[in-house]
Structures are given as structure tokens and as C-alpha cells.
């Protein structure tokens, strides 16, 4: 979806302001939100792509005004309600009022914590040969789905070069919507800054994205 989350190349957000000696969490609730999202995700209640889509789908004014973990919280709460794992009446009451379907992998217990220490693998068996190879000239397709995609707007319609093949991975565009893995070849595609931003752009700048095969067409 063409949401405010797709920020590459936007102007007006001001300077980057690093914080010296930044703590892991600024408030205790931030850690609780991170842990709840990780736990529910690890045991199959939500997936990484559906979570991202839930955050992108927050109203733009909420997305921009909320802190990072506030967005995580609003998105996980929305998802749990949508999936009928938590009732709106329960959110209102602040307590469980009825039974809900179990998590795919059961309750998240201290024995499950180490599974949150390492990223899972999103690599999958290829469904066919890769269509592109390093050195191929490609164009990022001009697509504008209202559903989840990982093709940022700033490269759409622009030409680049395939630099590397990163294997075959779960396709976020379907996985976000419960429509399966649909594994796709993944490529690092490099763009010249002048191709993306015009003749005034830094001639010594190159930008790459990691693009799934359906995002690309051969030139």
C-alpha cells in the first residue's frame, strides 16, 4: 500500500537526532510490548508480514504521531482483535471474558524464549529457476497494490542492475494476507542516484533494494 510508512526520499522530517547512551527501552511498557509481539509471533498467532501490514495500515496521522512501540502496540492489539484471539469487550474490560482459539504452537513459556534469540529462516525451496542473474539490467515495475508490498515507491519505474541473488524466500505480498509463502527469488538491485532522484543527485551515490522477482522486469 502507498502509505506514509514508505518514507524513502521524502523531505521535511528534519535532522537525524542520535541520543547519547540510549537505553534499550525508554519506558517499561515498551519492553512488554516488544516481548508480547515476539511471543505471539513465535507461537504462530501473527507473522512478520501481517504485523508490518497492520502497522502500515494505522491511520497516517496516528502512524506519524506515535512512537515506535506505540505503533507496535496498536498493531498487535488490532490484529489480535481481528483474528478473534481477543475480543473488543475484553480490551474494554482489561480481562479475559471468554475462551479463544489456542496459538498454533501452544502457550508461550520460558522454554520458548531462546527461539526469540535468533531470527527464523525465511528461505524456501525454489519453485523454478531464477529469471535474472547478476549483471542483468532490470526495471522495478510500476505497481501500486493496496495490499502489503516491499517494493518502495521511490524505485518504481526506475532501472537498475542485479548485483546478487539472495536465494528464494517467503513472499511478503502474499504471506501478509494469509495467502501462503509463494516463495520467490530475491535479488539485490542497484540503482544510480541520478536514475532515482534526477540529474542534480550525488553522482557518487548508489542505492540498492532487495527485490523479489515479481517486482522486476527485464530490460
Amino acid at each position, binding site marked *: 500500500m502507498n502509505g506514509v510508512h514508505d518514507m524513502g526520499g521524502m523531505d521535511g*522530517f528534519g535532522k537525524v537526532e*542520535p541520543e547519547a547512551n540510549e537505553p534499550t527501552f525508554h519506558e517499561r511498557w515498551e519492553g512488554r510490548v516488544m516481548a508480547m509481539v515476539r511471543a505471539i509471533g513465535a507461537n504462530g498467532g501473527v507473522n512478520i508480514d501481517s504485523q508490518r501490514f497492520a502497522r502500515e495500515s494505522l491511520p497516517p496521522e496516528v502512524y506519524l504521531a506515535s512512537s515506535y512501540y*506505540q505503533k507496535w502496540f496498536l498493531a498487535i492489539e488490532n490484529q489480535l482483535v481481528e483474528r478473534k484471539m481477543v475480543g473488543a469487550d475484553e480490551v474494554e474490560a482489561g480481562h479475559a471474558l471468554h475462551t479463544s482459539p489456542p496459538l498454533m504452537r501452544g502457550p*508461550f513459556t520460558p522454554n520458548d524464549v531462546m527461539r526469540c534469540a535468533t531470527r*527464523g529462516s525465511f528461505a524456501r525451496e525454489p519453485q523454478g529457476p531464477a529469471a535474472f542473474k547478476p549483471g542483468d539490467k532490470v526495471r522495478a515495475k510500476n505497481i501500486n497494490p493496496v495490499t502489503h508490498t516491499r517494493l518502495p515507491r521511490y524505485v518504481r519505474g526506475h532501472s537498475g542492475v542485479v548485483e546478487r541473488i539472495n536465494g528464494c524466500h517467503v513472499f511478503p505480498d502474499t504471506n501478509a494476507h494469509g495467502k501462503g509463502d509463494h516463495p520467490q527469488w530475491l535479488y539485490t538491485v542497484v540503482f544510480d542516484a541520478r536514475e532515482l532522484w534526477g540529474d542534480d543527485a550525488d553522482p557518487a551515490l548508489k542505492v540498492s533494494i532487495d527485490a523479489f522477482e515479481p517486482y522486476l522486469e527485464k530490460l
Partner: protein
Amino acid sequence: MAHDHDHDHDHHHAHDHDHSELSETQLRVRALETILTEKGYVDPKALDAIVEMYETKIGPRNGAAVVAKAWTDPAFKQALLADATKAINALGHFARTGDHLIAVENTPQRHNMVVCTLCSCYPWEMLGLPPVWYKAAPYRSRAVKDPRGVLADFGVALAKGTEIRVWDSTAETRFLVLPMRPAGTDGWSEDKLAELVTRDSMIGTGLPKNPTDMKS
């Protein structure tokens, strides 16, 4: 370290407005945790353990150890650049890292910088949880268009003519920048070298510390 409730009360006096917003969030977060616990979805002790893990065990020291090793061991560096996940996991004594980590090397000709314009993708196992600026609009919007301006915000100026390559983490690949080893560190141990490796130098928004700034 997470701030405790007492701190939150102190905070109240300084930033009344912030606090009223935060306290609503705090209440809602607490309510959701209660619901998930009562339903048997999560054990709060498991949540405690996840928080503790990210506060105490998983942080940029992991990445710094990998960089220092690459600076001292040419065979490891070669393996790291070929397949970072495999090379790091083969060591056994560092934190394991998940798929699909790619290490990118800074050279005198080329400086690498990592961003996630769409959300906040970041190599957690190597660097811990990302800092607020990495996840915020100013960095995400500007890094792909004006990385030299972003570097200036960090007080970093590259040598004239240095090419910049920005890696936008748009998929489940993750990137670790291998910064250049500072001059004047011949014969240093891996442990001592790791002290020079900052988090930002592994994102590409900073450079390693200057060896002359280190206590001997």
C-alpha cells in the same frame, strides 16, 4: 535498563503532557498483557526473559567481536564476506545469527550505509534492538537521497570522492557494515580492537573510534 514506576512518576513532573499520553498507553499495554496471560497465550515470566535478553545479552558487542575478528583473521574475513550467517555460526563462541546476514566492507573508495525505509529491519543478533533514530522518519526518509547530509548530522565527513552505497533492507536480508580497521592498531588483540567498534560504525552512520582516544 528499563525505567521503573518511580522514574515514571518523576517524569510526570517534568513532562506533564507526555505523561498523560504515556499513562494511557501504559494502562492499555498492562491490560493486554493481563488478557493474554489469563487466556494462557503467554507466561509473563517468559516475557520478562525476552526483555532481559535484549537488555543484557544481545547488543552491539556481538557485532564488534565479529568485526574485530575479521580485522585480524583474513580467512574469517573472506568467509564473512562470502556468507556472513555461515561464517559467524561456524565460530561457535559468538551469539548465533539467523538468516540472511550480509556483511558489506568499507574501503577507501566506498562507504556503506544501511537503512530500512519501509520499517525498521536491522541485524538484531549482531547489534541489539535498533536505536530510536534508526526507526524514525528523518533517517528513513533521507538516507537513500542525501546520505552525506545524514552523515553530517552524525558529525561524519568522508574523504572527497568517496562513493556511498546505501543498502535499503527491504526483505529478510540483514546487513552488517564491516568498517575499515583504524591505522595505528598493529598488533592489537581482538578484544582491544573490538573496543574501537561502535554500533554506528556497523550501520554506516559512524566510524570506529580513534585508537589514540583509547586508554592504554
